[in-house]
């Protein structure tokens, strides 16, 4: 078996809670807690979860935009976390990121061409003429026009700006791109265009994506495999088909049951969960989902379940994953026709 492109093990990040009411209140937030997964060549791993679950922090830790507290990240056999200076810079050619907000992630004082070639300038192994030629090629590639090169971000719509952000990520010819809520700020009709663009580029350049999103429908559409996070931990990872058709973690099941689907005939057929996500400052003991879980027993409140394999490509962190199959409430199962 060939090595995965990216392997993440025991990745953790804790922050000191700011604005604590008193000194004795100075607590630690485990934003990402013992997270592990891998990304294969040419695939898209979807990373989903609700706000505050640690999905964006995970993406930033891998890119070393934030330094992890613990864990290891291997990219093509290289230990990402121990790299420094020139080696780290070289690695960053291969790993890029596209951000959510196409307004704040582009420098308003730079022309679109300068924005796209900035990563190439930083890398420093191309001359000016080549860089500009590359920028123009990339503009065409992402569905803009090379005639746009001299324009500034404010002259573009949200969808067009996101295309510029994608062109910038493509500039150093990466193998791996973290898409951090990359289509979430876009209107539906424009979002669909950008999703199709990301898929076309993946096919053309053999890219791998870590696609971070709160939108389970978009993630299903674009991903090969999907990981679900809850309060800093991954609770389930599986290939797309398995995850959506027979989810085994009660949280995954609840999440899928909560999505409004565009079929009026499927209305109100699905189980809901009550309660809200617990504070990351005071996560419940044992399984972090135990407070909201309809199946929780004493064991769940005592002991945090470890990730374990149910099948070759299906991992779940739940003491009772075998039992939970019958509760599956995926809309697919009930869809008629």
């Amino acid at each position, binding site marked *: 078996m060939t090595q995965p492109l990216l392997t993440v093990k025991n990745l953790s990040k804790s922050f000191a809670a700011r604005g604590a009411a008193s000194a004795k209140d100075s607590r630690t937030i485990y934003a990402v807690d013992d997270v592990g997964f891998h990304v294969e060549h040419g695939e898209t791993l979807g990373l989903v979860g609700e706000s505050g679950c640690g999905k964006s922090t995970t993406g930033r830790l891998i890119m070393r935009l934030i330094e992890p507290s613990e864990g290891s990240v291997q990219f093509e056999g290289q230990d990402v976390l121990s790299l420094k200076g020139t080696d780290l810079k070289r690695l960053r050619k291969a790993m890029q990121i596209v951000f959510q907000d196409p307004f704040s992630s582009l420098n308003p004082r730079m022309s679109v061409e300068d924005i796209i070639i900035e990563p190439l300038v930083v890398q420093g192994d191309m001359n000016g003429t080549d860089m500009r030629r590359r920028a123009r090629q990339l503009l065409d590639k992402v569905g803009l026009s090379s005639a746009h090169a001299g324009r500034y971000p404010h002259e573009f719509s949200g969808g067009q700006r996101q295309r510029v952000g994608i062109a910038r990520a493509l500039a150093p010819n990466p193998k791996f791109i973290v898409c951090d809520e990359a289509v979430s700020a876009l209107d539906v009709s424009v979002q669909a265009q950008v999703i199709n663009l990301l898929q076309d580029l993946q096919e053309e350049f053999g890219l791998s994506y870590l696609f971070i999103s709160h939108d389970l429908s978009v993630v299903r559409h674009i991903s090969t495999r999907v990981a679900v996070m809850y309060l800093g931990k991954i609770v389930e990872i599986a290939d797309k088909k398995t995850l959506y058709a027979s989810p085994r973690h009660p949280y995954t099941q609840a999440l899928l049951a909560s999505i409004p689907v565009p079929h009026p005939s499927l209305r109100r057929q699905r189980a*809901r969960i009550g309660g*809200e996500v617990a504070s990351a400052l005071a996560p419940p003991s044992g399984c972090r989902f135990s407070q909201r879980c309809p199946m929780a027993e004493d064991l769940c409140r005592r002991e945090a379940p470890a990730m374990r394999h149910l099948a070759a490509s299906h991992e779940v962190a739940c003491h009772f994953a075998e039992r939970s199959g019958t509760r599956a409430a995926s809309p697919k199962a009930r*869809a008629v026709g």
Partner: protein
Amino acid sequence: MSQTPLLSLRNLRTMFTGENGEVVAVDNVSFDVNAGEIVGVVGESGSGKSVTALSIMGLLPKTGARISGGEILFRGRDLLKLSSREMRGLRGREIGMIFQEPMSSLNPVFPIGDQIVETIIAHERIGHRAASARAADLLNRVGISSPARRMLDYPHQLSGGMRQRVMIAIALACSPKLLLADEPTTALDVTIQAQLLDLLRDIQDETGMAIVLITHNMGVIAECADRVVVMYAGRVAEEAPVDRIFDAPNHPYTVGLLGSTPDITRDERRLWTIPGSLPRIEAPPSGCRFAPRCQLAIADCERGQPQAVQIGAAHWAACLRTQDASSLGRKT
């Protein structure tokens, strides 16, 4: 239909003053809301859906915005002819409203209980104690446990979902006949969104109140609405019962919007997209606003605003090519 609608918009036109003169944000919009039904208004940015709601509530900015035409009939009375004092009496009492961002709609320096009580006292001759008791009941009804204690909480002490529940409690305080809900769940996580949509429907079942639910999310529409109004660039593109919108859309924009929405119940290799981007409100296309992005557009589409054509029972589409639109981009 023989029944008189609770709310009837007739050719509503709302203008904003921009840097280079006036722009039309809502253009000739007409639709009805009957007692006890949930009408979903769906559209993307700039479709005019929120401006329509603000126009109904009389909450447009005092400067730079005006309603330049049309009627808003609520129980037979034209709201545009009411004085601001009469509108104040109506708002909150007969028409309630909830917004996307509950934090900016609640006053941060008062406990939430006071804010509910204040609403009740503003509209009814009722003592403080009775109003307090009703506030607690309302909180209980929107799913907030230990309401008496929660009434003392300030907005910042509540989660986003809880704040939206409080907003719903305030909106319901005087049992309005109509609730305008503008993207009420957009800022919330999906599990909380599901809880709140369930709550809205339960309340609607219980009270028979009508709801205008404004959203950009076709899934939310499918979950909640009885009838749907699809808006694009300030105009109504299509209006139909919810099943018809999803199963037999007749406007190319509706077809495109559905095709662009990833569907969790199916595998599609590619999304069916609408080319181009939303028109700028300052320079809308002449004729049909959707024509520049429409695969079916013909020369006539650019000549004038297409009239709404009746397709079936309670189903209209403002398009010259409805016959062909219904077979466009069909998902199989």
